[in-house]
């Protein structure tokens, strides 16, 4: 499964479990407008660490991305 597909899957699963309405997902979507709040995003990050074996936000200087496209890019870069 590609990184992007896994990320989208986790957004959808967490939204369902936490009973949140997910906005249509696109690269331009601002994460804070996605329907997931910051705790839900923390769950997404924890699940992605389990699935992909990486947490790109562990580094001291890692800033949390603004859009979904940025979020996916951070994971794709960390995987390289």
């Amino acid at each position, binding site marked *: 499964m590609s990184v992007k597909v896994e990320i989208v899957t986790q957004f959808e699963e967490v939204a369902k479990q936490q009973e949140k309405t997910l906005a249509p997902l696109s690269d331009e979507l601002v994460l804070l407008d996605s329907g997931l709040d910051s*705790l839900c995003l*923390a*769950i997404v*990050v*924890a*699940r992605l*660490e*389990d699935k992909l074996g990486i*947490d790109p936000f*562990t580094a001291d200087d890692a800033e949390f991305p603004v859009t979904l496209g940025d979020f996916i890019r951070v994971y794709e870069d960390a995987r390289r």
Partner: protein
Amino acid sequence: MRNVVVTGGSRGLGLGIVRRLLAAGYRTIAIARKESNPLSLVMEAANRERPGSARFVAFDLAEIGEIARLVKALRHDVGEIYGLVNNAAVGFDGVLALMPTSQIEQLVRVNTLSPIVLTKYVVRTMMADGGGRIVNVASIIGFTGYSGLSVYGATKASMLGFTRSLAREVGRMGVNVNAVAPGFVDTEMTQGLADEQRQQIARRSALRRLPDVEDVANAVEFLLGDNARSITGTVLTVDAGNTA
């Protein structure tokens, strides 16, 4: 078996907590720099009765930068983490005016920064797994004064504030966060107390004695158990009435 991580689990209060939780049926993962002989004996006995129920992980909790890797390895090795007991602490005493800055820094690093960072990585796995329990071992020194323990007291007070706010933050994700505030307990950490001081503390306590390790371990077990499912953001004082 529910997995519970106990930091500083090789001696003192932490060892007592490990012993109690094993008896209560949990699988414990004790974290400390070195495995002690008493912990080895406790683990051997537990693993004879329930194979795989007691584990030890050697780790220096002052190595903040390695904590993320520690939690990742724990998840990989034991699976879901149900409980975290933030017990590890250092207890240097001394008047503030003469305390070396390096010692002040170490107190804050081990007693405050390290448990907060460890909790950061563990709590999000708990949220992802649908819930969990965190118990922070604070101290009555976090809300009452004791000459020579100003920095230690500051770190313990910080854990109380941390407990209350984190409880509010993660409650809706099914994670309970509480603290236990022991009074002076007979452990290696309090061996610096003269007998006279010890007697004075006992005299000033409602029950005319000091609490023991088992009393504190029982409180931790209670907060981890199903009977405490509606308790979060609170502090359970176990001091034989010293601050009553």
